[in-house]
């Protein structure tokens, strides 16, 4: 269990390094294309950071409003509150604000910029379908997202991808509206090497946002595995979460108030996915969550 957690954290770190590398490559591509443009990069950085961190700071309010969650009354949802309180003791976390989403599809999410400003929501469907130990496993998974600062990690990743996309966008515009001819005049370099570099730089600019997006999805899946492992370390009872995931696997309902933007917060993919499609391994690159089968297998191996 510890091994898995350590390995997941290492992978996340390497991916973040990869993001930084991607930004550097993209910025370099722009510089190569039209010598300069530092101002553009700085603006792109500032805008991306401002956007991403604005949403990070208010992540709890935004997520709750977006999913139309209502505060969970303490006397009506006694078991839900009790389970959360118990697990917060085990994790050394303050108790987050609790919400309920009125939806028959079983699902849950956690959000908030740090453990002190966290919120946790479950659907009415989840409360109905899961028994005590399964509900506890799901809650432990969600609390682990809070404990591992996953919102922060995801925001950094989104910032990176956003920056890459903005830089690429600016770079491409400059490339098509006059950057290249200026450069050739300045350096007198109009030979074949210059053309190759220009084309390569263009290719990087066009593909970089896409690569960044795939990396973000990969990291999101990694954090999901990490939350599974951390959650089970809290409850010391893998069968609880395994049983919950098995129930989720066999249930095909879709959460109505989820969207692509919020998809990665939920415990399982809230949007429609057809896991029986051929070639689904390629499609899985775009999933925010790993396939339930794989998650169950990993938990069983603990």
């Amino acid at each position: 269990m510890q091994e898995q957690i350590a390995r997941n954290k290492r992978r996340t770190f390497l991916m973040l390094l990869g993001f930084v590398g991607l930004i550097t490559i993209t910025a370099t591509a722009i510089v190569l294309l039209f010598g300069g443009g530092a101002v553009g990069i700085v603006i792109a950085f500032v805008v991306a950071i401002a956007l991403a961190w604005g949403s990070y700071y208010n992540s709890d309010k935004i997520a709750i409003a977006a999913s139309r969650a209502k505060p969970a009354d303490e006397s009506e949802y006694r078991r839900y509150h009790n389970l959360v309180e118990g697990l917060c003791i085990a994790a050394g976390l303050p108790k987050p604000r609790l919400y309920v989403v009125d939806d028959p599809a079983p699902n849950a999410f956690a959000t908030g910029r740090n453990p002190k400003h966290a919120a946790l929501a479950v659907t009415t469907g989840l409360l109905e379908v899961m028994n005590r130990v399964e509900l506890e496993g799901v809650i432990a998974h969600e609390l682990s997202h809070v404990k591992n600062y996953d919102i922060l990690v995801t925001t950094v990743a989104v910032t990176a991808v956003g920056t890459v996309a903005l830089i690429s966008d600016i770079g491409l515009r400059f490339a098509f509206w006059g950057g290249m001819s200026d450069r050739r005049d300045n350096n007198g370099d109009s030979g074949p090497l210059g053309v190759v570099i220009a084309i390569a730089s263009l290719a990087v600019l066009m593909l970089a946002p896409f690569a960044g997006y795939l990396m973000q999805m990969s990291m999101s899946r990694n954090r999901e595995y990490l939350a599974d492992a951390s959650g089970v370390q809290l409850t010391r009872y893998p069968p609880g979460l395994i049983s919950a995931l098995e129930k989720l696997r066999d249930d095909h309902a879709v959460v109505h108030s989820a969207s692509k933007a919020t998809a990665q917060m939920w415990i399982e993919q809230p949007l429609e996915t057809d896991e029986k499609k051929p070639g689904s391994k390629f499609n899985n690159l775009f999933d925010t969550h790993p396939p339930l089968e794989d998650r169950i297998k990993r938990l069983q191996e603990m």
Partner: protein
Amino acid sequence: MVAVIVVVVVVLILLFFWLGFNGLVKRRNQVDNAWSQIDVQLKRRHDLIPNLVETVKGYAAHERGTFEAVTNARANAMNAQTPADQAQAENVLSGALKSLFAVAEAYPDLKANQNFLNLQEELTSSEDRIAYARQFYNDSVLSYNTKIQQFPTVILASMFNFDKREFFDAAPEDTAPVQVQF
């Protein structure tokens, strides 16, 4: 040039002392906090019990042996002085509560009583909380003990008397199968 290197080295050493010492203090305080957390949860359970006994008495008045066992166990647990005595007394109380709930199984009217069901939920989660509090205490002790033994913080630990802490152990009674008497 040499002066610069010396200054840098001194600063690094001071940083090590500062951060290392604070890290040890933080972990040791977490151990102490976790220990009192266990007490908080045990007391919470004590407070729930009188209400439970009264509710069950309303339906199963002649199960006197079971009630007495619970009430006595609770009194012993609240009066325990040393941590070892307390742990043992609390285990006895857990056993008595299990018997009480087992007895309640035979009374369908009681099982349908909303008050009883609420108390059952509260006591189940009490047991969970006590278990989690002990788990968190042991996790904290593990983290603290590891840090004071690891290099280089081991140097600080011996310099400033950061001593090893004991884990919380389940008493032998707790690991034996529970005897349920009807």
